[in-house]
């Protein structure tokens, strides 16, 4: 369970969000510039929060009223940026072990890579991987660190259509099995449906709606949601 209530002011843009995320995946949708990436970065601690609090499984990561602001490395919040940001100078295995150095980390990394179907890539460098492989390696790297929450910024956007189809199910299954709050930014209704959890609609720095995916599809809140919900039929 993750609860947040925060205000971010950045270059004249104001983001105000109050959210409560259950364990399992939640889709975060909204037009470009709505503040989706900013929200993720604020939760990570990469963007300063003017006012607010973030509570993860009862532990305050941030509470401006009480002067609490845990550094990012102590939050236990995993993050997959849009381009995956794999460490280019490390092998796949070294990347995946990064959050858990030592022999136990190596064993775990091998297992997770295998589970995601990229075990044979362990000794390769990120520069030699395809988009789909990078995505899986980045996901494996985040998982091995055993995060208590996971933030994924358009994890499927960089993939071509075919890879996206095959990767989507694996990502959704993995996130469901994890049973930690995970927030997934996406622009595609197929992704939202595959994730199958709640949908958060962010517009102009405000949370426009929160609800189950069926509800979102049946009565889309506003123009953007209508277009998104209708995009499946095409």
């Amino acid at each position, binding site marked *: 369970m993750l609860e947040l209530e925060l205000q971010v002011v950045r270059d004249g843009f104001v983001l105000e969000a109050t959210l409560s995320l259950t364990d399992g995946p939640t889709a975060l949708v909204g037009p470009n510039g709505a503040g989706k990436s900013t929200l993720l*970065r604020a939760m*990570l*601690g*990469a963007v300063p929060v003017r006012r607010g609090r973030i509570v993860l499984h009862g532990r305050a990561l941030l509470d401006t009223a009480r002067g609490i602001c845990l*550094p*990012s*490395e*102590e*939050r*236990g*919040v*995993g*993050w997959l*940026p849009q*381009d995956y*940001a794999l*460490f*280019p*100078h490390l092998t796949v295995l070294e990347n995946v072990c*990064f*959050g858990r150095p030592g022999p136990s980390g190596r064993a775990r990394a091998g297992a997770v890579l295998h589970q995601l179907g990229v075990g044979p890539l362990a000794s390769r*460098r990120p*520069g*030699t991987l395809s988009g789909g492989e990078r995505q899986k390696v980045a996901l494996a*790297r*985040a998982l091995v*660190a055993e*995060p208590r929450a996971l933030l994924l910024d358009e994890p499927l956007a960089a993939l071509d259509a075919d890879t996206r189809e095959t990767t989507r199910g694996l990502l959704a299954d993995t996130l469901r099995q994890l049973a930690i709050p995970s927030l997934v930014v996406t622009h595609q209704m197929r992704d939202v449906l595959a994730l199958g959890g709640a949908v958060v609609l962010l517009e102009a720095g405000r949370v426009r709606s929160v609800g189950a995916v069926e509800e979102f599809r049946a009565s889309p809140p506003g123009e953007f949601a209508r277009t998104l919900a209708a995009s499946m039929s095409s």
Partner: protein
Amino acid sequence: MSGRAARRVLRLLPTAAALLMVLVLATPLLALLLSTAPGELLDGLRHPLALSALRLSLLTTSVSLALTLVLGTPLAWWMARHPGPAERAASILVQLPIVVPPAVSGLALLLAFGRRGLLGPLLDRAGWALPFTTAAVVLAELFVSAPFYVQSAAAAFRRLDEDLLWVARSLGAGPVRRFFRVALPLSRPGVVTGAALSWARALGEFGATLMFAGNLQGRTQTLPLAIYTALETDLRPAKALSVVMVAVALAVLLVLGRGTVLEAVRARA
């Protein structure tokens, strides 16, 4: 002159200028190499002036390079991470020793650390007399050479992809691990280039050393000072040491060149 001939001369002008430039740059070095026979080179290097200067230069430049890395890296990191008025001021301060004439640097060092300098009384009370000691040589080398490293390292740190550092943080890596495992390896070409340029500059340091540390054989007489001194008595060690310094400079350039080629190959792989 006809119009066509004039155009032809104009077309050849840049080529002629470029050739002249090459000539100006190459002739002195060529003269140095041609005038030094292999036997003469060995004789020159066996000269007592040469040996002690080589030893002293190796010692002082090693110490000044170590100090540059230990003190300069945190400064470069800070400059790269905290853009703003203070960083700009620091950046100008760091660039000054590069453009200031060495004689001015020498005088400035004397006025700072000399007997009657700014910190003179303080150093005196601590029982330290810096001028005309080996420590003064190191300080002069540090003053003129560290800026090359700080500039180059800061530029490399500025080019780092911020997201890589945030990912490292999200994976639980603290500042030390982020720096040594992510930032430093990814900035290596710039850091290594800066260190090599800085070391080469320290090795060639002449003016500031002469003014602040003097020219005492075995204590403050580094390679360039030994070359200068030898000129007055025996040209052989001067020529031999000069050839050694040109060879070292070439080696530095080759190592740097190979480094960048390696990086390029790796990036493409």
